[in-house]
């Protein structure tokens, strides 16, 4: 009997893989192009992914990337399913109540996207009665709830699903990160009839100070990550990765 249990445990250990083999486990999302996406063959790629790998190299640590649902990503960190979040997560006061952040590794504004010629006025009054899609649990949801209270919000699990519904015409507009919209949607075949509308938003109360690396409260690794980002910026490796994805600067001022 004991042997059976031991064998079962060993088999379970094999199945759950080499958890603990890597120095750090990093939660990434995998459905947020061009920052993080999953290729048809199941590989992870994108700006976040490359930055994560470069930072790990910079610190001389081995890292394992753990693909995690966006709306469960902070709980996953807190439950020690991973040791850091590198998933384009904005540093906001609300999130800082729960976790700590490294310095930012990029900062881009948020914008609306709608069908070309939609002729909607992007003010709280003009959007009344319209349907706007956002990803659940993002700064964009908080921003819309705070600044556009009369708008009907549709909440999506991933940004990709939100794009599908915008293309299908189920929502009048989406509110999301401008770079994500540009590369993940507007530059693709599905996004050819759509365009940015309204101003670029960067309200510190909602949008924070850019995307940082999330760690558990009091984790000393926080400063390690910040230092590694700084070194990556100085060595030119950051620009190299950035230009792989963008022809403009996303680090922000």
């Amino acid at each position, binding site marked *: 009997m004991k042997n059976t249990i031991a064998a079962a445990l060993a088999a379970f250990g094999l199945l759950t893989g080499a958890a603990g083999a890597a120095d750090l486990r990093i939660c990434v999302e995998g459905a947020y192009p061009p920052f993080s996406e999953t290729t048809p063959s199941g590989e992870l790629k994108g700006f976040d992914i490359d930055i994560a790998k470069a930072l790990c190299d910079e610190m001389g640590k081995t890292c394992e990337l753990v693909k995690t649902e966006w709306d469960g990503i902070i709980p*996953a960190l807190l439950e020690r399913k991973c040791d850091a979040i590198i998933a384009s997560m904005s540093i906001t006061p609300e999130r800082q109540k729960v976790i700590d952040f490294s310095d930012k590794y990029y900062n881009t504004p948020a914008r609306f996207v709608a069908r070309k010629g939609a002729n909607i006025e992007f003010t709280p009054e003009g959007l009344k009665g319209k349907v706007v899609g956002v990803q659940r649990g993002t700064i964009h949801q908080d921003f819309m709830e705070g600044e556009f209270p009369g708008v009907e919000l549709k909440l999506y699990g991933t940004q990709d699903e939100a794009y599908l519904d915008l293309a299908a015409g189920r929502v009048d507009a989406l509110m999301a990160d401008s770079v994500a919209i540009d590369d993940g949607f507007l530059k693709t075949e599905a996004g050819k009839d759509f365009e940015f509308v309204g101003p670029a938003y960067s309200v510190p109360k909602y949008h924070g100070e850019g995307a940082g690396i999330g760690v558990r409260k009091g984790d000393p690794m926080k400063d390690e990550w910040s230092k590694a980002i700084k070194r990556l910026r100085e060595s030119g490796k950051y620009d190299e990765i950035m230009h792989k994805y963008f022809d403009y600067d996303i680090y922000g001022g």
Partner: protein
Amino acid sequence: MDIWLPLKHWDLFATGVWTTLVLTFLSVGAGFFIALPCALAIWRKSPGWRLAAGYAYVFRGTPLLVQTYLIYYGLAQFDFVRESWAWSILREAWWCALIAFSLNSGAYATEILRGAFQTTPRGELEAAAALGFTPRQITWLILLPSALRRAAPQYMNEIVFMLHGSVVASVITIQDILGAGRTLNAKYYVAYEGFVTAALLYMAITFALVGLFRLIERRYMRHLLPAREEAAAQGAHLGAPTIVG
């Protein structure tokens, strides 16, 4: 675990419970009306029975999540769907969920009812025919009352499955009970509060349903109860009209 968090957002969950209940009961109801003709056709091998059997086979053979995705995201890919009158319905996540759930529930119900028809004692039907009942009368007065009673326990199980299956609605933007839980979790960056609340609500609804089913069974299936319970049931329903088969 902060128990005040769900209480603070009780309105979110109240809307969720309402959405889940309406979606579940409408789907089961619509499913029944899809299943009845399908099951009759299959049992009698009437024209088109293969079509009905094919429908039941396909919808029982694929997961509800996949069916819902295909109807919600899949159909929306086609321009001709988006330009047709059907788009005013398919545009709404709520209708897509209702259609997918009804078709799914209907497929399971078809199999349940077909099984119940098949186990109808031949004698019941032959006796009715010998007494000069028309085929229509035999169906409505003999076959259905008898078969539906036999199908009831399984059918009630199907309703509970549909209730639990309805969580799929939350992946196509519908704020059902699970959707409310996810929203709460996402808002406060927590893992348990929303899910535990959702689980408790589903459990409460399931127990309420099971209790309701028990009452229905006592009422309509008294003839199948053991003698002692029958006496108790009769006591409870003293004066109620007798519909014992």
